[in-house]
């Protein structure tokens, strides 16, 4: 690792702020901890203390950062989305940001797209036929569009005859709508299916190798994912055609 030109050791809060600022996507506590372990062990000496930061300490630093940012009224703050954190500008400043980025036309989803997305979100993992049952129309085109937009993806095959694919929402879906987790959606208790136990959140006391492995899985290529999902949808529709012809 290259040498450091740094004299003053930063506080955990400052590190968290810098990491969130430089990151290109929301950061989980795990990823922040991984960066701290790598820097701590890589630089050694007084840096070793950072390698020992716990999830709780990092979470505390995030909370302190969040509070300090809010109090200082800087036009930005820390938000929690998809169980990860990101910096974002205050909504009140949004019109100015849109003017700057010349994004006056925000990408808005159509009503059918939103309805389909809502069904997938609450009922995931769910079959295409289930969505069509609820909406009463074919969702082929709209589902394809949502997959293209990386808001929906295939999760796995179901155990039903013909092993049809099951669909779910993506990380991008959570980011786009600024949702931390599906459970935070209104009425989710009522609309959601009970999740199987193994899909529930695990507690986080991982070692570094475990951390690395998990993060490796996390950063699966989203684009490839979209291609796979489109292929799965194609397969579904082909099966149907054959059935219709037969």
């Amino acid at each position: 690792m290259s040498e450091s030109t740094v004299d003053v050791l930063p506080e955990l809060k400052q590190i968290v702020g810098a990491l969130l600022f430089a990151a290109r996507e929301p950061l989980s506590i795990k990823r922040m901890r991984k960066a701290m372990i790598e820097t701590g062990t890589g630089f050694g000496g007084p840096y070793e203390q950072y390698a020992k930061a716990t999830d709780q300490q990092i979470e505390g630093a995030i909370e302190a950062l969040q509070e300090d940012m809010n109090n200082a009224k800087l036009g930005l703050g820390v938000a929690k989305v998809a169980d990860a954190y990101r910096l974002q500008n205050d909504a009140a400043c949004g019109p100015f940001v849109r003017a700057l980025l010349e994004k006056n036309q925000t990408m808005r989803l159509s009503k059918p797209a939103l309805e389909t997305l809502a069904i997938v979100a609450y009922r995931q993992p769910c079959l295409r036929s289930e969505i069509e049952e609820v909406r009463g129309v074919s969702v082929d085109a709209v589902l394809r569009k949502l997959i293209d937009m990386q808001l929906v993806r295939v999760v796995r095959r179901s155990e039903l005859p013909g092993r049809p694919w099951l669909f779910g929402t993506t990380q991008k879906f959570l980011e786009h709508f600024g949702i931390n987790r599906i459970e935070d959606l209104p009425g989710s208790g009522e609309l959601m299916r009970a999740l199987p136990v193994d899909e529930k959140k695990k507690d986080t006391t991982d070692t570094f190798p475990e951390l690395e492995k998990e993060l490796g899985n996390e950063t699966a290529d989203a684009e490839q994912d979209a291609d796979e999902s489109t292929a799965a949808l194609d397969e579904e529709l082909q099966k149907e055609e054959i059935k219709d012809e037969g």
Partner: protein
Amino acid sequence: MELIKDDYKVMLEVFEGPLDLLLYLIKKDEVDIYDIPIGRITDQYMEYLQLMKVLDLNIAGDFLVMSATLMLIKSRMLLPVEERKEMDEEDEEDPRWDLVRQLVEYKKFKDAADHLEDLELHMENVFARESEHVELGAPPEVDLRDASIFDLISSLNEALGRVQEEDLQEIFAEEYTVGQKVTYIIENLKVAKRLSISDIFTGMVSRQEIVCTFLAVLELIKLNRIAAVQDDHFGEIVVEPREPEKTEIESPEEALVVEGELL
């Protein structure tokens, strides 16, 4: 002074120019840049240039232009002030003055470049949002760290200076090759981890052997197998193995054969 018969070329890029060599010599001898002992510095300059030619370093023609300039200044300095005035009516300046001005100015820009280097180092730790650092391509191939090529040549010069004059006669024995010396250095570094250049030359009495050894050092630097490190200015140069890189370099003998075929 033909010390090696084959036209073995290291082709190590000499980044430094003639002005760097002059500044190096001025600093090494701790002389006043505004009152350069032109005779002494010119002799040293020619000595280094000669060594660079012997080593077949890829030197630019600018080095030769500078040697001509130095010779001219030296010859004009030998003239009494009165005659100088007669020869050149409108210019009664010290003949060294143009060169001094050039050196002083160059030194200022070298300092400015050092400042930019510090800024660059600082900015390595600074990221703007979604911005990328300027992509600067591959890192420099040669790891000379703080030692300049002139420091290396200086150590060769010293080693050659220690050799007895009479040993000069046995040059054509052709007992040593660069390939041999490459292996020798690598084997020694496996044990010692760090070797000073003068230690490497210890016990060598033939100029041909010293030059071959020196070329082997240059070749290993060029192949990224070793780095030349200098802890203080004009301090002893130490070579050490470079940290193992992902791309394994083939055995040095093989690499040398591919490039030189003569070894």
